[in-house]
Every structure is written in structure tokens, then in C-alpha cells.
């Protein structure tokens, strides 16, 4: 928030209209007859936080939906699941089917009236109006539409919503998706997408805050050939470090950071003993950086680091007794093991992408001039004095070890400088820095010159802390045939590093394609090369085919996707992506990307994230899921079929735009493999049963039509028709839709392959629908014709008749209720008490209501409404009737049993097998078997800790960003509350520095 002290003098800003380009801004400020250019450097994006300043002037240029960030958000579309769309289509089909039946019966009626009814009319004395057979057919059509309308499952929509609501509650209630540390339970924010969670094929994940915690932790180090950081037990075995491992007590140090944890005691002991190498090591960490300290109260140090890596290193030094306490442009004050010592800062040899190192030259309190350097090991090792070769090899081994654990490493070195050499160098440096030509090159040369013959001190290993269980989750989801694409605003290096540490990139991979082209042509070239390499030289990649051919190509690709044995990875950065997402290249990009096991897009803007998601959504018939935690993920969360928000420290935008939210990436596994799979299963079973039930129920009228002169006489009692769907059969299927489980949660997680049945959509599709309806039609046929055969000439055992319509109705209705109850019993895999209660309860209720409605009392009160008096008593006491019901049930259910038995016996699915195993092991204690911890075994020398930009060194030495004198604002990634978000043009007398990380495309 900005609070202007006094009203600013009038001025005028002319700038570009609102747009979504985050890396560009053009405008001019006219103020007091002067014109000032406004560019991107002077722009604060919505959600930014100012640092290191007490005040600044600002001007709001865009607000609300005009802000660049909001322009990147994309539109909110109403999300529906594929099953729901299919359901709508099917309901339309059913409606068509209903019309067809109506027409058939109406024609039947016309013919019947013509042939038979006309002669029969003498008994009916109908008005002359009805003499016309055609008109009678017309009326019959509408009568049948009304009678048969129960075939259109109207209550389906309500039931589906109830079931989804239930599933959403189960997600909300899941303790295993509850994050205790932040007291955050998972939340299903929509109730319409649950079953689609069981069909996800592509996951698009943000990196920072989603895969990683965005916390850097000083984890290990190697000092003078010895590693610190591992904990060993008394037998010398390495102990796994967990939350509960005892950590080192830093209480000797009053200025320590209390949140810092380190587990290896030997390092503290080494510091306390005053090992010179260790001291020097920490001195490097405490001196060689661009961190700004802030000490509001005595002893309450806060570091403002522009990259979390540096912060972690300086904090480590601080806790081990080398506290970086204050800096001025010329000095750095340390609090070294309880003593204040001030170093004169002589020069900062700043970081840049080519140098991959930074150094400082200081004069220590003893007056010695020292150069401290830290940087990428490969770079630094070339600049060491030959005498330290042995140490270099040892350290190199240690670095390999660190890299193998996915840590980011830095090598540290120092050098003593002679006074005169330095003075001479300093003169040349001054010359170079004031030179007008080739200044940078000359500076680089000078830096190179002095950073030679250094002595190696050791190496640090920093953990870019992944969220808990990320690697395991990714491995598990990959086993479930879900493809995970990482879309991040981070740099290539960082993104790749995370790719390695969460096991998405592996050493065994045949190739990792990095697409960094700057022009469309370059990108195309690189993509083609990659594709050709994957597919082998035999396949020509043809461009610009017709659609049909494209489909062919696509199909071939799918085949290839399966046959390609070696694994590839594709990494593409924002520039190239912009070209690759053009209409003519997107197909190539998609094809290539889909051939790769892993896809990482780095330096992408929020809008590009959405475009990538949209690309997959459009061309692959696959369900996509986007997961992210920040405002920059909102567009992709909105675009994907399912959006998941990680409710982290990054504010609420992502969560607010999402469909599901929880606190940890690893819960995604449970959301998809357990909740999603179950939801899908339950919904499909529910739909199948629902359609079956309606067909079985309604089509009996159709068959009866052929015997009652197509006169639209109903088979059942009106009350039965009213109550059948609501009271007699709704609850058992609802219970199944809510509680059914084919395999338990442990097995769902242990066998991720089970998830594939949702991706292939085998449980409910048009074919399944036809099977259900056929099953329903068959049932209705049996339900009608067996009683017909048995009844048409039957009498009771006391000779009085039973072939009357009412007895027939009661018999069929009872058979129907029993048959559909048995069927739901067969469909239910998981009989909880609730299921039992509902199934048996429904049957009981049926008989209770039946007898109540056929009772004397209700008839004498409403004789015209309950004409079925006594039918239940007279019919259901007959053995013959029960024989009919038994036969009907047997004939209806037997084929289902046979088909199901044969299917599980001959073509057992994965589910059947797991179920079988699960039941076999039922007697043994069910034990939770976690997936084996995925250990990364990479030898890749990991990169590089600096994720910041160059230029800070100069700022420090020039003194321009020293706090009191000059405000400096930095643009921090998406922090802050959405309500106050505005885009601000800010200026100050000093030059602004900003941290550009995730929201920035370059």
C-alpha cells in the first residue's frame, strides 16, 4: 500500500493501453514541463511488495481487471465433465427413443383401432370424435409420451448432484489430505468435477511453491576435504534425517536464526575448536554476497536476500558464529564468534551468467587483503592453485555425492593478495570501469586476472527443498500413465535442477532436448530434430497435411508413443514457446512433447501456461489438470479441465480460482488415485444402473401396449409409478454411488495402473450405455412375458380369478422391485451398513407401502384414488404368484451372473486381480505398504546456486541502495493480498532494483 505524504504536484502520464505483456511498458510522465520516460523498470505489478524503503511515490496506472496480471488471467469458463456432456447427449437420445416408441405405439393404435377397436367401440360408447383411427393414434402418441416419460431419467440429474456433493464432502473430510502444520484441510471448491478426477491424463504443474517449498536450506558442506551434514549412528551407519532428528544446539550464539536446523554436531565442534579452514569457510559465506541486513531491534537480524540461496548461505554462516551484521558501501561488519570485526570492502567482482562466480576483496581487521570467491565448481576448479589438487579431488567427490542427492552446490575459495599487486590491479580496475569502450570486457578480463591461484576451501550444498513426497508422488502418477508437464517462470537451470531432483529428468534418459531458439525457424528446426531423433530416421515428418492425414499421423504417434522404449525429455523456454505456440508449429510442438516422458517449460508467462494447457486440451482428447499456488497460475488453473490450487504462502488467488485446493503437492496422488478413481467408478456404476433401472421399469408398458390395444393403459398402479424412482429404488443406488469401492485405498495407491480405466473411459461410454439399456430392455421383457405366460389363464387356488389387471400389476411391480434390488446387490462391491439398510429398507418399505395402499382404511377414505384395495393381500398370498416372481428374478439375474463370472474368469481386469488379492489377504492384517522411497541416483553435477541477476555488486559498492539513504524496491513474486492489487508506476531518486523471478518472462 502506498500512502502519499502530501498531494503530489499535477502531472500527466501517457502510456500504452492495458495489455497482458508483463515484460514491457511504454509511457511518458510529463511533470513540471519535463518529460520522463516510463519503462518496465519503473513498473510495479499487482501483488508486489516493496522492500528496503520506508516510503516512495507511486502512481496507479491500471486497476482491477486492467492490470497486467489480471489481463493474464484468462476467462472463467463454466467447467463440465465429459461424463456430464455424454449424459446430456444420452438423455437426448433417450428422448428420441421415447418419441420412437410413442410413434410405434401410436401407429399400432391406429391399426388396432382400424381393425379391432372400431368393432369394439360398441362396448365403450365413445364420442363420435374418437371414431377416427388416425386421431386416436395421435392422442395415443401423447398418452404414451406421458406414460413412458419415466424412461427419461429426470431424477438422474438430482441424484448425480447429490452423489457429487457427497464425494466432495469425502474430499473435505479426508484426514490424509489434511496438513497439520498449517491446519489446512483439502477443499473441493466445486462439486461438479469429481468424477473427472478419475480420468486425468495430463498434469500441468507450477514449480515454485508447488513442487518446491521455495525454501533453500543449507544442508551439507565439505570443508577441507571433510563432509559435514550427515548423521551417523554408533555403528557408523548413516541415519536418515527426519523432522524428529535431534538438531544442533546453537544457543551459544545470541544472534542465531532460531529456525535454522543442522544435524551434524561435528561442524559446530570444529567451529568451536577454531579450525582455521572452517573459520575461513564461514567467513567466505558471511562476506561474499549481496545480502542486505536489517536489524530493527538489537539481535533481531533479518536478511533481505535477493535469492533464497544466498539467504540460506548467509544464515548458515550466521548460526555457526559468523554473523553478518551490517554493511556500508565500504565496510562489512561481522560478529565473529562473539567478537565484532569490520572488514573493509575493497571490491565486489559481481556475478554474471558467464562468470558463474562472484568474489569480494576485503581488508580484514588484521590489515590483510583477501579475495573470497564462491561459484560453480567447474569454473572455480580451473582457477585454483595447483598445490590444492588433492583437496580438489576429494571435494569433487563430495560434490558428486551432493549432486547425487539433488542438492545445489557451490565451491568456495580464497586468496591472499599482496598489497602492491592489489593496488596496481585496483588502478587498472578503476580505469576499466570508467572506460567508454568495451568496459564490460575489460572488467571481465581484470576479474579473470585476479581470480587465479585461489585456495579451495570447500563446497556448500543447498537443498531447494521439495515439498514432502514430491518425487514419490510424481513417480506414482507416472506409473498411473499420467503425464506431468512442469510450467514454470523460473530459469532453465533451476527448472532442470528441480526436474532432476524430483526424478522427472534422469541420467538414464536417452536425450534431453533443450529448445531455446529465438526465431520461429530455429524453434521449428530444433523441434524437428528432436522429433526425428525420437522416431528414428525412417519417419519423415510431413508438415501441412490434410486433417485426415493428420489424424493418421496422430494415431501413428500414439502407437509410437507406446513403442518408444527409451525415454526423452523436452525442455523449452518462454521465447521458443511463444514461437512454438503459433498455429503452424503447435502441432509439431505437441507431437514432440507427447513423445517425451517429461516436458518442462521454463520462463513462461501466465498466459503461455494457459496456452500450453489449451493446446493439449484442444488436440488430445484428454482430461487436463493444472496445479499451482500463485497468481501466475490462475490462468492455467482456469483453462484446464480441473484446476488445483495449493494453498501456500503465496496468497489466495490460485485457490480462489481453483476447483480443488489443498496444502501439499503430494495430496494430488490421493486426490486422483483414491478420490478421483472412486468418484469415477461410482459415477459410472451409478449411471449404468440408473439407465438400466429406468428402462426395465418403463418398457413393460411398451410390451403391454401390444395386448391392450395400444390404449396407453399402464401396467402398474399410479402410485407405484410415482414412488418407484423416488422411494423404492433411489436410496440403494445412491448408497452405492456414495460408498462403493472396488478396491480399498491402499490398493488404489499401491497399484497406480488401476487408474488407467478412467483415462480410457471404459466404465461409462456409449457402448456401456447400450449394454445397460439392452440389459434394461431384456429385464422388462422378462418381467412382462413370464407373468403373462403364467397368468393369462391362471386362477387362484380357491378358483377365483387372479388374471385381472390389478393382480398382474402387483406381481410385475413386486418382481421389478425385487429384480432391481438384486441387481443393485450385484453391482454393489462394498456393502456397508448403510447399503444393507437401504437395500433391505427399500424392500421393506415397498411391501409396507404396498399393503398400506391396498388396505381397507385408505380405500374407504379415498375410494377413487386407491382402487387397488385388497390386491396385495389376495395376490401375494398365492404360492403361484411367488413362483412367478422367483422365476422372473432368476431369469433376469442369471445372464448377468454368467456374463460377469465369465468376464472376471476369462478376461480379468487389473481391478479384478487386485480385488482378488485383496480378498485373499483379507485375513492377514491389512498393512499399509508405502511406495518405496524413490532415491535419486544421478551423477549429474548439479548446478548452481545463484538464481539472481547481476548488478547487485555495483549497487552495493556505489552505495545507492543503502537503506537509509535511498529506497530500493524489489519486485517479489506474487505475494500480497489480491484486494489491493494494482499496477503502479513508481519512481524514486535512486535507481530501482528488482528481483525478477517467476512472473517475468524475459
Amino acid at each position: 500500500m502506498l500512502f502519499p505524504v502530501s498531494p503530489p504536484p499535477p502531472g500527466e502520464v501517457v502510456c500504452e493501453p492495458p495489455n497482458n505483456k508483463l515484460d514491457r511498458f511504454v509511457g511518458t510522465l510529463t511533470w513540471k514541463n519535463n518529460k520522463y520516460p516510463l519503462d518496465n523498470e519503473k513498473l510495479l505489478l499487482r501483488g508486489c511488495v516493496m522492500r528496503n524503503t520506508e516510503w516512495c511515490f507511486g502512481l496507479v496506472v491500471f486497476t482491477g481487471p486492467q492490470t497486467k496480471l489480471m489481463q493474464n488471467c484468462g476467462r472463467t469458463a463454466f467447467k463440465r465433465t465429459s461424463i456430464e456432456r455424454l449424459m446430456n447427449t444420452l438423455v437426448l437420445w433417450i428422448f428420441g427413443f421415447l418419441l420412437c416408441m410413442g410413434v410405434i405405439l401410436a401407429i399400432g393404435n391406429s391399426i388396432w383401432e382400424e381393425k379391432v377397436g372400431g368393432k369394439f367401440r360398441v362396448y365403450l360408447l365413445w364420442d363420435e370424435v374418437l371414431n377416427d383411427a388416425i386421431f386416436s393414434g395421435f392422442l395415443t402418441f401423447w398418452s404414451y409420451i406421458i406414460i413412458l416419460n419415466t424412461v427419461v431419467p429426470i431424477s438422474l440429474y438430482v441424484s448425480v448432484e447429490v452423489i457429487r456433493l457427497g464425494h466432495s464432502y469425502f474430499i473435505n473430510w479426508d484426514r490424509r489430505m489434511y496438513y497439520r502444520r498449517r491446519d489446512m484441510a483439502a477443499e473441493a471448491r466445486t462439486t461438479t468435477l469429481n468424477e473427472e478426477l478419475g480420468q486425468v491424463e495430463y498434469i500441468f504443474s507450477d514449480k515454485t511453491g508447488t513442487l518446491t517449498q521455495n525454501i533453500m536450506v543449507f544442508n551439507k558442506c565439505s570443508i577441507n576435504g571433510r563432509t559435514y551434514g550427515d548423521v551417523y549412528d554408533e555403528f557408523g551407519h548413516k541415519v536418515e534425517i527426519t523432522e524428529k532428528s535431534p538438531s544442533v544446539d546453537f544457543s551459544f550464539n545470541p544472534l542465531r536464526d532460531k529456525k535454522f536446523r543442522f544435524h551434524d554436531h561435528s561442524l559446530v565442534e570444529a567451529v568451536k575448536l577454531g579450525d582455521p579452514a572452517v573459520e575461513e569457510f564461514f567467513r567466505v559465506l558471511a562476506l561474499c554476497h549481496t545480502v542486505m541486513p536489517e536489524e530493527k531491534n538489537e539481535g533481531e537480524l533479518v536478511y533481505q536476500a535477493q535469492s533464497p540461496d544466498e539467504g540460506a548461505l548467509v544464515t548458515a554462516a550466521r548460526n555457526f558464529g559468523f554473523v553478518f551484521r551490517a554493511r556500508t558501501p565500504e565496510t562489512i561488519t561481522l560478529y565473529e564468534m562473539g567478537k565484532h570485526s569490520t572488514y573493509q570492502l575493497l571490491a565486489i567482482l559481481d556475478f554474471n551468467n558467464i562468470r558463474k562466480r562472484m568474489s569480494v576483496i576485503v581488508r580484514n581487521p588484521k590489515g590483510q587483503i583477501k579475495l573470497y570467491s564462491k561459484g560453480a565448481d567447474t569454473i572455480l576448479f580451473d582457477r585454483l592453485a595447483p598445490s590444492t589438487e588433492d583437496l580438489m579431488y576429494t571435494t569433487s567427490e563430495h560434490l558428486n555425492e551432493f549432486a547425487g542427492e539433488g542438492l545445489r552446490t557451490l565451491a568456495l575459495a580464497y586468496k591472499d593478495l599482496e598489497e602492491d599487486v592489489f593496488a596496481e590491479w585496483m588502478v587498472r580496475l578503476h580505469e576499466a570501469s570508467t572506460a567508454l569502450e568495451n568496459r564490460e570486457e575489460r572488467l571481465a578480463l581484470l576479474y579473470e586476472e585476479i581470480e587465479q591461484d585461489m585456495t579451495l576451501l570447500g563446497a556448500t550444498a543447498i537443498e531447494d527443498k521439495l515439498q514432502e513426497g514430491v518425487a514419490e508422488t510424481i513417480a506414482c502418477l507416472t506409473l498411473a500413465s499420467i503425464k506431468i508437464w512442469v510450467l514454470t517462470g523460473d530459469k532453465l537451470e533451476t527448472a532442470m535442477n528441480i526436474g532432476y531432483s524430483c526424478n522427472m529428468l534422469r541420467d538414464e534418459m536417452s536425450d534431453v532436448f533443450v529448445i531455446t531458439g529465438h526465431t520461429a525457424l530455429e524453434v521449428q528446426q530444433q523441434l524437428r530434430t528432436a522429433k526425428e531423433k525420437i522416431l528414428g530416421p525412417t519417419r519423415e515428418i510431413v508438415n501441412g497435411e490434410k486433417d485426415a492425414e493428420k489424424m493418421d499421423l496422430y494415431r501413428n504417434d500414439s502407437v509410437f508413443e507406446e513403442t518408444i522404449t527409451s525415454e526423452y525429455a523436452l525442455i523449452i523456454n518462454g521465447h521458443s514457446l511463444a514461437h512454438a505456440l503459433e498455429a503452424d508449429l503447435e502441432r509439431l510442438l505437441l507431437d514432440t512433447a507427447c513423445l517425451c516422458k517429461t516436458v518442462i517449460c521454463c520462463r513462461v508467462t501466465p498466459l503461455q501456461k494457459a496456452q500450453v494447457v489449451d493446446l493439449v486440451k484442444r488436440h488430445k482428447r484428454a482430461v487436463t489438470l493444472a496445479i499451482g499456488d500463485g497468481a501466475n497460475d490462475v490462468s492455467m488453473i482456469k483453462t484446464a479441465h480441473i484446476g488445483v490450487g495449493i494453498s501456500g504462502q503465496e496468497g489466495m488467488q490460485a485457490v480462489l480460482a481453483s476447483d480443488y485446493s489443498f496444502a501439499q503437492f503430494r495430496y494430488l496422488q490421493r486426490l486422483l488415485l483414491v478420490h478421483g478413481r472412486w468418484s469415477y467408478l461410482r459415477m459410472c456404476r451409478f449411471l449404468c444402473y440408473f439407465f438400466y433401472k429406468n428402462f426395465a421399469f418403463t418398457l413393460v408398458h411398451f410390451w403391454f401396449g401390444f395386448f391392450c390395444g395400444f390404449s396407453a393403459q399402464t401396467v402398474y398402479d399410479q402410485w407405484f409409478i410415482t414412488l418407484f424412482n423416488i422411494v423404492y429404488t433411489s436410496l440403494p443406488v445412491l448408497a452405492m454411488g456414495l460408498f462403493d469401492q472396488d478396491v480399498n485405498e491402499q490398493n488404489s495407491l499401491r497399484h497406480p495402473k488401476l487408474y488407467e480405466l478412467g483415462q480410457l473411459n471404459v466404465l461409462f461410454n456409449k457402448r456401456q450405455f447400450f449394454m445397460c439399456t439392452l440389459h434394461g430392455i431384456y429385464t422388462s421383457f422378462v418381467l412382462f412375458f413370464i407373468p403373462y405366460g403364467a397368468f393369462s389363464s391362471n386362477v387362484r387356488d380357491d378358483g377365483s380369478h387372479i388374471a385381472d389387471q390389478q393382480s398382474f400389476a402387483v406381481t410385475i411391480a413386486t418382481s421389478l422391485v425385487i429384480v432391481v434390488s438384486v441387481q443393485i446387490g450385484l453391482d454393489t462391491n462394498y456393502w456397508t451398513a448403510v447399503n444393507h439398510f437401504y437395500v433391505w429398507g427399500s424392500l421393506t418399505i415397498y411391501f409396507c407401502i404396498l399393503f398400506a395402499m391396498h388396505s381397507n382404511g385408505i380405500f374407504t377414505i379415498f375410494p377413487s384414488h386407491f382402487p387397488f384395495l385388497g390386491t396385495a393381500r389376495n395376490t401375494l398370498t398365492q404360492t403361484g404368484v411367488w413362483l412367478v416372481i422367483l422365476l422372473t428374478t432368476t431369469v433376469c439375474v442369471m445372464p448377468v451372473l454368467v456374463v460377469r463370472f465369465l468376464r472376471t474368469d476369462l478376461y480379468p481386469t487389473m481391478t479384478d486381480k487386485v480385488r482378488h488379492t485383496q480378498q485373499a489377504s483379507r485375513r492377514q492384517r491389512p498393512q499399509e505398504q508405502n511406495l518405496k522411497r524413490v532415491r535419486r541416483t544421478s551423477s549429474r553435477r548439479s548446478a548452481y546456486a545463484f538464481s539472481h541477476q547481476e548488478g547487485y555488486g555495483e549497487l552495493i559498492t556505489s552505495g545507492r541502495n543503502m537503506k537509509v539513504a535511498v529506497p530500493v524496491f524489489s519486485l517479489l513474486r506474487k505475494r500480497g493480498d489480491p484486494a489491493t492489487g494494482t499496477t503502479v508506476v513508481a519512481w524514486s531518486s535512486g535507481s530501482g532494483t528488482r528481483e525478477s523471478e517467476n512472473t517475468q518472462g524475459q
Partner: protein
Amino acid sequence: MAENEEKAKAQNRCPDNSAFKQQRLPAWSPSLTAETVLPFFYLLGIACVLLGVLLQITMQNTQEIKVDYTNAESCDMCFETRKYKVNASRECHCSITFSLKERLEGDVFFYYGLVNFHQNLRRYMDSRDDAQLLGRIKKLKNPSVYCGPNFQYANGTPIAPCGAIANSMFNDSFALFFHPLVDRPLRVPLFRKGIAWYTDKNIKFHNPYVPNESLPQVFQATAKPLYWQKPVYELDPNDSTNNGFINEDLIVWMREAAFPNFKKLYGILDRQSSKMFEQGLPAGNYSVSISYNFPVQYFRGRKQVVLSTVSWFGGQNHFLPIAYLVTGCVTVLVAVVLTVVYIKFGKKGLKMED
């Protein structure tokens, strides 16, 4: 303090650890294994076959004699007479003969059968007023419009009983005669009451009751249905308690048949009144004399007389035993096939490969 509060709050947001909310309700999850399905099929199949055999044997002990009298023998003349509406009021009597080769054992039931008569048409079935038949005075005088055009005459006189069903009531009457070889014909005694359901007779149908008025007086302001020859209170000339809405022939007729071919009970053999019929109907020659009133030629219908005995599962019924036998056999066959399939192919199918 604050920490405690925070802890309490944390507890609040944490979902309950109940079996229901965590979807861990104890449950029974059956599955279709060979151990359960195959024995079930065998048992079911064998049970069906046994039941089928039992039904077949039982059914063979029941007998049914069906005689079509539409235009048989002397009824041919009546058939012709009834062809024309002008003859509607003319009485016509005829008789048919048949012989029983075996004695009809036990209770014998006398039915009349109609072929091709649609009692199950929607408009026909709706055309009645149960409230009127229940004896509601208000409805007697003011029958429901559901009765259709048959609820009152053009002059406003209400019809009792109203509606197409009542109007089309079957009005042939029968007398069954036994012809012993030596003696003169003997009328077979039939119970003409007790042929309707108890609930129908005693609850669903009641005569309207007005204190101090006889039945004809109660029905005074109403008219008989159009096709009827006598008013409802004179339906049974022999038994005054069998008149009005509780006339059992009317009650039987009012229970509409589900299918166009049906039979309805007319009388039950009275085995007590005569020694000859104590065991049922003896073998020999019989004749039925018919008061032929009901025209069927309009809709190409047929009329039958049916004599039948019943068993514990109802009258003679060929369908049920055969259906059970077929189902049972098919089930056993399927069970055998499934066993073979299971042993040959499926035994190891469910083992996990890994």
C-alpha cells in the same frame, strides 16, 4: 494461552477421524468367485428342475374342460339372433353338450370364458366409479365423470352402476346338467356366491344404504345401464341378498382382466347338497343350457364354458412347470459350461502377475 487456543483451533479444522468420513466403514465386499458362483448355479438349476417336476406332476392332477359355445350346436341360432341389434330384447336359449371321460376330482369350478374381449383398454378400465360402487349415496346420484358417456342418460338420470365396464357386463346365464346313463338329467348344484374375492365382496362393494328404504327405493332416482335388461337390484332373482352392487357376478365382472382372453368364475360345484357330486363331477355326459344374451360377433369374440379343478398353485397352467424345467435345465447346463471354462482357462486368471 494463545498457543493453546491455536491448538484448539487446529483441532477444529482437522476432519474427524470417523470411519464414515474417512470412508473406512466396515464393509462386506463379495465377489463372483468360482467357489460361490458355481455351487450357486448348480443349486439353483437343480432347485428349478425339481420345482418344475413337482409343478408338472401337480398340474397333471388338475383337469380343465373348455367348450366353445359361441355358435356350437343349437347356439348357432342364438348367435345369428344376436347379430342384429333389433333382436336385443328377444330372449334366446340354447344348450350344448359335452362328456367327461374321467371324473373331475374335488372342487370343480365353472367359468365362462371370453376371447378377444378387451377389458384392459385404458378408457374402458377408467370408466367406473369406485365410490359409487362403495355405496356412497352422493355418488349414486351423481356418478363420477370418469364413467365417461355412461354416467347419465341424456335426460340427466344418473346410471347405477355407471361406466363402460358395468354396461358391458356379461349376461349369459348357465345351468349345468348331468345326464346319467339311466336316469333323467340332473341339474348340477352350483354355488353362485363366494365366487368373488372376500375383500371385493365385503369392502370394495356395498349397496347404498338409506334407513327404512328397500333396495329398489334407494335406486329409485337412477337408471340401469344402457345395455342391461334388468336393473341392478334385480340381478339375481333367486337370492335377494345377492342384488345391487354386491351381486357377485357384477363384482367378478368389475375386476377387469389383464388380457383380452380371459375366464371368469361363474359358480362352484356344491358338493354337499347331493351325494352324487360329493367327490366332484362324475364321468359321463353333460349339457349346459344357456340363456344366450351377450353378443360377441361385433368384435369377433368367442364364448366358452370352462370346467376346471385347481391345485395348490392355482388352476391348470402349462406355462409355469415348463418354464421352470427349461430354466432349471439351462441353468445346470450353464453351470457345467462355466465349470469347464473355469477349470480349463480361468483358474489362474486372477493371480497377480507381479
